């Protein structure tokens, strides 16, 4: 029988049992819809992580202290005292693939303005920090190298700190606040950045010269971390190699000693974050795929019923000249039709859900063509796989017995 006629036949057979066909499709519909929704949520979160990491500076390199002492209690990174200004100067001088560099000495404490106070974090940095972290000044100015050398008691505030210290809404520029016991004059306010992907308020900070923070607050010559920018994104890996070499030399590490620092690029961070989100996507998709399999079993079940129900029809078709392959194709196409129709409905529901979810739950979603294509392929394969055995059974019926079947 010609393919077109077979397809027409299958459509007719499904139309005769509309409700049954729909119920059979349900498993596939739910499966496809959930796969597409899950994948678009996964893609969406991946993309938003990438976007926010890129906003932090895509060629940013972070250097943190790291334990290289085997044995004994290992301590967190910030408790190691390995990074000093000497390292920063060495890198500034000897690493050609680094464009700018800034140390970071931070401390948490209470910021006080008159009757208002707010627990926050002060970050002691050099002026280049602004460019590395893509921070922008909204009002006022950045402190200068002169301020750094003089350990000037000047600072810039993030929006959260401004809101909490100046609840009346007055202009903070030029005012003096205290961080702990140290008075700081406010010379600038930063453009708000909002929350990071880790749920951290990126506007809850005070920026001051690192010399001031080191001398007056932390009383140490060590830095918690060093931030640098590679000359471009592609140079990140070379820059990491250069940094490692310089730091190993400046820390006088022997060949058999591990690094006492850790260098991470933004690209690595991106990969790390993405691997978490990819794993979640894979997991959710796997769960959703199970319902596709269940849907397929549903198709198989109903096709067996259909074959039994239509035994006489099969017998008749055979007696008037249908070959085994004609009968096989008839039932196979019917099964594939169920699964593909279910797939189409599933795609429509899945895509709608991917459009509605960001509005209802505020989760970002990205609908990928890939997920739609793969759903279709999986549907067709499901139909063929689960429809094949019932169809084979039908095609192998003995026409004599099938004709007499009651």
């Amino acid at each position, binding site marked *: 029988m010609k393919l077109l006629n077979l397809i027409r036949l299958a459509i007719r057979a499904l139309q005769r049992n509309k409700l049954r066909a729909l119920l059979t499709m349900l498993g596939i519909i739910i499966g496809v819809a959930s796969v597409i929704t899950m994948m678009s949520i996964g893609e969406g979160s991946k993309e938003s992580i990438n976007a926010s990491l890129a906003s932090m500076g895509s060629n940013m390199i972070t250097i943190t202290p790291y334990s290289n002492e085997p044995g004994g209690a290992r301590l967190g990174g910030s408790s190691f005292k390995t990074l000093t200004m000497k390292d920063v100067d060495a890198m500034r001088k000897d690493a050609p693939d680094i464009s700018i560099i800034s140390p970071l000495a931070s401390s948490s404490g209470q910021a006080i303005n008159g009757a208002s106070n707010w627990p926050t974090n002060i970050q002691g940095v050099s002026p280049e920090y602004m460019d590395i972290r893509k921070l922008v000044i909204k009002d006022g100015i950045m402190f200068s190298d002169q301020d750094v050398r003089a350990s000037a008691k000047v600072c810039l505030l993030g929006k959260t700190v401004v809101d909490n210290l100046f609840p009346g809404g007055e202009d903070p520029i030029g005012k003096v606040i205290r961080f702990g016991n140290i008075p700081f004059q406010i010379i600038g306010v930063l453009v708000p950045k909002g929350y990071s992907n880790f749920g951290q308020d990126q506007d809850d900070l005070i920026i001051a010269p690192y010399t001031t923070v080191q001398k007056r607050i932390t009383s140490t010559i060590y830095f918690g971390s060093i931030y640098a920018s590679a000359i471009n994104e592609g140079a990140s890996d070379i820059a990491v190699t250069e940094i490692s070499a310089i730091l190993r030399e400046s820390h006088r590490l022997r060949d058999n000693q591990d690094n006492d620092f850790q260098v991470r690029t933004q690209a690595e961070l991106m990969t790390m974050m993405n691997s978490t989100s990819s794993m979640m996507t894979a997991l959710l998709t796997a769960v959703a795929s199970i319902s596709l399999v269940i849907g397929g079993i549903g198709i198989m079940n109903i096709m067996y019923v259909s074959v039994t129900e239509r035994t006489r029809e099969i017998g008749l078709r055979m007696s008037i*000249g249908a*070959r085994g392959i004609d009968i096989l194709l008839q039932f196979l196409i019917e099964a594939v039709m169920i699964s593909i129709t279910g797939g189409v409905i599933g795609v429509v529901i899945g895509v709608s859900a991917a459009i509605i979810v960001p509005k209802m739950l505020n989760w970002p979603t990205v609908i990928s063509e890939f997920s739609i294509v793969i759903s279709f392929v999986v549907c067709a394969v499901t139909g063929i796989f689960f429809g094949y055995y019932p169809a084979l059974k039908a095609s192998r019926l003995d026409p004599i017995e099938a004709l007499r079947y009651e």
Partner: protein
Amino acid sequence: MSNKILEILNVKREFTMGTEIVRALKGVSFEVNSGEFVTIMGSSGSGKTTLLNMLGCLDKPTDGIYMLDKVNIKELSRDELAKLRNRKIGFVFQAYNLLPRTTALENVELPLLYNPTVSTKERKERAIAALQAVKLDGRFDHTPNQLSGGQQQRVAIARALVNEPVMILADEATGNLDTRTSYEIMSLMQDLNQNGRTIVFVTHEPDIAGFSSRTITLKDGRVQKDSMNTNNRSAKEALASLPAADDY
């Protein structure tokens, strides 16, 4: 005419039921020429059904030769048998076996769907012609449950005619019908026969056999009697002689 449509030579058919061998046909031989109207009679268990399945190419003989239109059935595969059924045989069943919820026209078109040499347009034309030949002009769009038993059987006959077979094979085609409708169907069969169709009609009613030109009687898997009906009745006259139908 001595154009042999059917040639059966010492055909045997055995079935194995568990450990027992059932010999349904024990050596049957006869020939049917083109244009004959043959009835095959026999009581139940005489091998009638087995012979019919064989004639219809649904089954193959265990032993012996069956030539249909000069083709030896024994050498054909399952698919080749299907093709042969499609092109050379028109089946008419006792239970009509029409597809439910499918119009008369589509039911008649069915055999042509399995013949890829027939185009969609030709298929429809031939189905309409076949339905007209069985006098069902105004019923193309009726489904089987909208038709009477006699009409359903006529749709089935149209379906058997549509592929222009060399032989129409009827299995108790009047078994489910009342006398009047049976006669109508037999009258139709006689008309078709007069137009040159070869008909093999299996029945157990001697009354029906009287309308044919030749009767083969089976008993215990053997041909008991094979005789020409010299004074075969006309179904039209028999119909006319029936008392007038009750008005309803």
